[in-house]
């Protein structure tokens, strides 16, 4: 104990210096933060500044503009529903169960995220092709995915679902194991625990993951283009329309669609944030 006292007494006491240093540090952090956010705002403003609202409304009312917006909304919504259905089980298993090959699955989950969407699209194209047994089987069953909205959903799902799964897995893994143990000692079945403890406690993560997946599906371009092409009114999503119009000289329409896309994504993110609820301290 003597040594502790000695060390304590020897420690310099200059609160003024420390405070100044802290202040300078805070200032530096604030400046860098400001820099980052101005960058985001600048990029956004470039889009808003270039659009005329009358043009945007006219374009949304036009058949091509309306079709691509509707298609994007429909397919991305389907992707979110699919993701919820398959994503929760995957996140649950990956977060709570120990088994062989888990590291492999983890890596597999990263693959769609690091793979260029164009390559993903190419893979899907090969998979669905006549030459592939799976493609042939689907053909026999009458399931047509190439150049159809179904194909768009598949491509977007493949690219976007891992974001949800990863986020939800993290928030399930953050639940203290004691809570799950307590639930089990209170006669709760695994399903009951999932419903009343796991789900409510990963709500924030699930909302964040859903927003990311939805936005990612809406913004998907490469894989979609490969699998579904760009048939106006049939497989032309918002992002594909933005590209096609810009390349063919219709920059105004391109900007209008882009603005709708950004606005929608932003609203989505915002609404889901409001829904997320509080983060519990464990």
């Amino acid at each position, binding site marked *: 104990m003597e040594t502790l006292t000695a060390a304590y007494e020897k420690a310099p006491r200059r609160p003024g210096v420390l405070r100044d240093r802290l202040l300078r540090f805070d200032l530096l952090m604030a400046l860098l933060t400001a820099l980052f956010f101005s960058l985001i705002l600048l990029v956004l403003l470039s889009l808003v500044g270039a659009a005329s609202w009358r043009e945007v409304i006219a374009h949304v009312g036009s058949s091509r503009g309306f079709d691509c917006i509707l298609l994007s909304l429909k397919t991305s919504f389907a992707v979110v529903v699919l993701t919820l259905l398959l994503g929760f089980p995957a996140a649950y298993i990956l977060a709570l169960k120990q088994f062989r090959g888990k590291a492999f699955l983890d890596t597999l989950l990263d693959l769609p995220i690091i793979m260029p969407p164009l390559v993903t699209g190419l893979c899907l194209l090969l998979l669905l092709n006549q030459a592939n047994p799976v493609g042939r089987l689907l053909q026999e069953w009458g399931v047509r995915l190439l150049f159809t909205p179904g194909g768009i959903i598949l491509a977007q799902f493949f690219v976007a679902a891992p974001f949800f799964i990863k986020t939800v897995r993290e928030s399930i893994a953050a639940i203290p194991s004691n809570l799950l143990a307590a639930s089990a000692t209170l006669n*709760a079945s695994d399903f009951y625990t999932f419903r009343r403890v796991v789900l409510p406690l990963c709500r924030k993560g699930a909302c964040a993951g859903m927003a990311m997946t939805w936005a990612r599906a809406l913004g998907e371009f490469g894989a979609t283009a490969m699998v579904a092409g760009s048939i106006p009114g049939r497989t032309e999503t918002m992002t594909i329309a933005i590209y096609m119009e810009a390349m063919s000289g219709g920059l105004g329409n391109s900007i209008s669609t882009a603005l709708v896309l950004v606005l929608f994504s932003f609203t989505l993110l915002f609404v889901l944030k409001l829904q997320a609820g509080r983060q519990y301290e464990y």
Partner: protein
Amino acid sequence: MSIELKHVAKTFGTRPLFHDLSFKVEQGELHALVGPSGEGKSTLLGLIAGLHAPDAGDVLINGECVNRLGPQRRKVGYVFQDYALFPHLSAFENVAYGLRASGVERRRVHEKSLHYLNLVNLNRERDKLPQELSGGQKQRVALARALATEPSILLLDEPLSHLDAEIREQLQFELKELQRKTGVTMLLVTHNMTEAVTLGRRVSFLRHGRIERTVSTNALV
């Protein structure tokens, strides 16, 4: 119901915690377990409740080996050392949790939860979330929650450690009464020797990975 551990071994990582641990709590007994910090008292309770699997040896409840049964099927009540309250549920809902999970009828759930909240003097705090409760209040919710399902075995991991003398004595009395009236088998971990001796009919000392000795408190008094 009696509890018995036979030649149990348990290792976390590389450090063996128990090598050959045998231990028995008789049916209807209030048994106190004391020992230095980090010796594995909580782990021992976890082995009985089915939260940990023994590396070797058997865990017996009422003479039957339960090694392969999950926590749900062992019907063992557990008060966790760190309470493990559900942070998103009110004190009342925490207490009601086990009853609801067991499919008890609504009105009974309400009655019983209130009864046990009352027992630990928390009826005024019933709608508060755990984060709005003091340490001692949380501890009492954890106790009420474990009691509410009325298990025939209760494992208590320092259930009264954060309470002031008055309420601690009151709850010690309640636990003893409960035990006497219902014949529930209780295993109580405590740091407090006085508590061990006043509550326990027998006291076991855990040290160096085994039960060093077990004494009957009748002999002490």
